């Protein structure tokens, strides 16, 4: 029964991995740029919600309505100031440049967060924070369950946006073949901008959910970038729902290995998954083959 409890907790955390990875996957798939500062964007989203809670008393789930559009704007600004120059480079040099820009941005945001919020762990504790849903022998923290549902709703919304919206289709077309996208009259720079802004918005939403069910500190960025990267590699590019499922999978795998081998090993399993997928199925579980 302890095992079942661990699996449930793994699923709850895995939903956030999926949400964190969706943003990274979108940016990587469309811009062919690996944003290693993605975790720092998650961290910023978390502090955004924390500030709204501490200064204005906003419920974190309500804060999402402000954090998401705020992150969208932040993403657009970051694209225009930084990443817009990276994508002008040829695809081979793009990854290298994006790593440099991304690491620089990650360091800057980390320093900024320490300055603004100190290096302490922060968490939003709402009145209903301790509520637990008991199903037989398993107890489910309500707030984490709500976070999982919100994460799933956001992924579903993104999926619909990419499937139905005119510019959503344009973003997918650009991801698949940017030259063909140009030939059909798509302004690919605009598709890049939209994809980066959407990816940042997802990071902001993920950060908010992390700050309420778990905790944030200025140094969580790298950890979340790595988790997101593992999930992206496992899922492959191209399917947001697949990315979410892969996130759940990694969450459960971590919980199981922690239960089997002890707590410290939960970090190892993700890296093992990373290696195994790269060797056996480099395009990922849900990725498209060329």
């Amino acid at each position, binding site marked *: 029964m302890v095992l079942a409890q661990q699996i449930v907790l793994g699923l709850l955390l895995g939903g956030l991995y999926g949400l964190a990875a969706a943003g990274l996957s979108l940016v990587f798939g469309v811009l062919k740029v690996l944003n290693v500062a993605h975790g720092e964007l998650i961290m910023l989203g978390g502090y955004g919600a924390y500030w709204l809670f501490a200064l204005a008393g906003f419920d974190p789930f309500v804060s999402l309505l402000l954090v998401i559009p705020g992150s969208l704007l932040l993403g657009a600004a970051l694209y225009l100031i930084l990443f817009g120059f990276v994508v002008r480079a040829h695809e081979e040099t793009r990854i290298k440049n994006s790593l440099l820009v991304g690491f620089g941005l990650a360091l800057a945001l980390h320093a900024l967060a320490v300055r603004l919020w100190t290096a302490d762990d922060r968490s939003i504790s709402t009145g209903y924070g301790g509520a637990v849903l008991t199903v037989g022998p398993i107890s489910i923290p309500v707030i984490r369950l709500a976070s999982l549902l919100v994460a799933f709703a956001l992924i579903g919304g993104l999926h619909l946006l990419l499937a139905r919206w*005119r510019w959503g*289709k*344009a973003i*997918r*077309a650009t991801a*698949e*073949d940017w*030259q*063909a*996208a*140009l*030939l*059909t*009259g*798509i*302004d*690919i720079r605009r598709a890049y901008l939209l994809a980066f802004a959407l990816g940042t918005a997802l990071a902001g939403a993920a950060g908010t959910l992390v700050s309420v069910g778990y905790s944030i500190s200025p140094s969580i960025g790298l950890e979340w970038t790595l988790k997101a990267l593992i999930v992206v590699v496992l899922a492959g590019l*191209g399917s947001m729902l697949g990315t979410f499922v892969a996130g759940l999978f990694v969450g459960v795998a971590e919980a199981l290995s922690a239960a089997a081998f002890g707590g410290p090993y939960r970090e190892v399993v993700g890296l093992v998954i990373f290696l195994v997928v790269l060797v056996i199925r480099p395009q990922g579980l849900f990725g*498209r083959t060329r």
Partner: protein
Amino acid sequence: MLEIRGLEAAYGDVPALSGVTLRVGAGEIVALLGPNGAGKSTLLGCVAGLVRPRAGAITWDGGENLLTVAPHLIVERGLAVVPEGRRLFGSMTVADNLDLGAFSPRARAARRESLERVFTLFPDLRARRRQTVRALSGGQQQMVAVGRALMASPRLLMLDEPSLGIAPLLVRAILDALVEINRAGVAIFLVEQNVRAALTLAHRAYILEGGRVVGEGAGAALLRDPHVRRAYLGPLAAGA
């Protein structure tokens, strides 16, 4: 309507086009022939804005130089390209691919009529519009590629080797469709390695070798030209 003058392009130090001059008039079918590596695709790439030439001018409608137009706005001017290898969005449906063809605002206004036109031209696609493009045969994919370009309501349609790797029966269907499209007033610029078919279809043709135009003339006249016959219509190509 399209005039190319003194076009020079190179990949690094390797010249691809040296002083290419040609034109396509309104309502014409013009073929561009030549061996592999002659620069045919580079020429199309320059016109579409995907390849930056070193020198020369590409004039559209007797006025604007297309080299100064952003690539994604070229299709808006009424010039659509069917690229070599089709370059469709393989994970999307036929309907989505066609819809993206009408992405530019001007084409968007005429989307419904254009879609009807494409389905009339290629009835196969109507039944398959919900299918993923990757699941279609090469010939059907080529129909989608031509359809996607037509969705932009072009006045000039440029095609790069539309018959490459396609079953002969479907090649016929696609070439017939081109004649049909041309009858509706759309000029056609056809890059082809199927020389006999292209020359039968075309009003005029240019021959590109080593990045230079080495011959031009009416389609029928070139079919009788000894150099063309020897180089492109030898006994091995007789079946084409």
